[in-house]
């Protein structure tokens, strides 16, 4: 169980309180962690939320990865601690080398904010608890740089190791292999472009994101090799 969730706040992050609300609403206890602190405190899981850390200048996540908190998060992840990067958080995780590949500008060169359908490809990770491969979810995307790229070797490896977590059913941004989210090998670090915290209430149009956050709350540390 990962009830206590640390939600990281960089200057320029903007989805931190939405993420906190969603986690609390679903029974967790979220607290905001400042990027300049290196102490994670007593948390069972980390979410790096969406936004524009450091303005997304240079490259998305390029400056954020040097924040003091990132070393602690890397150590936490090495010990199997659950780490979820959403949107900008996914970009930060790739820049920090916790996930492979990179996120480039959308193929249409426009920011995109809309509901998107994604499909579970792998459930052996921290967002897949209780899900089945093939499950379809409607979750909003909200990004300019969501076009996942990696080398062919990496892509093959992701496929072989069953680390593609979600694919888009209708690719909005040009991502290689329609990839919407991936994990590290043990499955305790996941990065995804869609925003599950924006899909936690029918009043706002969808609650398909709730199960992903509940999964995070249910997932304990995953043993790493």
């Amino acid at each position: 169980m990962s009830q206590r969730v640390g939600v990281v706040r960089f200057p320029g992050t903007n989805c931190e309180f939405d993420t906190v609300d969603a986690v609390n609403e679903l029974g967790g206890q979220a607290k905001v962690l400042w990027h300049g602190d290196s102490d994670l405190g007593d948390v069972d899981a980390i979410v790096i939320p969406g936004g524009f850390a450091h303005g997304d200048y240079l490259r998305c996540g390029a400056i954020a990865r040097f924040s003091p908190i990132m070393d602690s998060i890397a150590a936490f992840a090495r010990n199997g601690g659950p780490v979820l990067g959403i949107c900008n958080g996914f970009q930060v995780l790739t820049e920090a080398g916790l996930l492979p590949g990179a996120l480039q500008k959308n193929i249409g060169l426009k920011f995109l904010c809309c509901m998107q359908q994604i499909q579970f490809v792998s459930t052996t990770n921290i967002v897949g608890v209780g899900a089945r491969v093939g499950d379809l979810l409607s979750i909003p995307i909200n990004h300019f740089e969501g076009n996942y790229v990696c080398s062919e070797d990496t892509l093959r490896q992701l496929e072989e190791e069953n680390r593609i977590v979600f694919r888009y059913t209708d690719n909005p941004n040009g991502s290689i292999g329609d990839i919407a989210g991936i994990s590290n090998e043990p499955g305790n670090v996941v990065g995804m472009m869609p925003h599950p915290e924006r899909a936690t209430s029918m009043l706002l149009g969808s609650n398909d994101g709730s199960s992903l956050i509940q999964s995070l709350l249910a997932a304990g540390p995953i043993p790493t090799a």
Partner: protein
Amino acid sequence: MRFEVKIEVSPRKGIANPEGSTIERTLPALGFKTAGDVRVGKVIRLQVEADSSAAAKTIAQDMCDRFLSNPVIEDASVEVLDT
């Protein structure tokens, strides 16, 4: 001494370059029928304090490798300009 350094960061060959391809797709519609093979990169200019031009280059190269470019998708070249 202060040296002016120019770093050019360009999309790696073989990696899609959405900006370049969009410009390329767009040009004919805008009346530029004769252009192609567009690649868009970044150029970063900065001042470095160092003892020699070679030292300035080493510093800039290090900056580039660790921070200014992402080798997964980008190539970078570093040049120390005459002052």
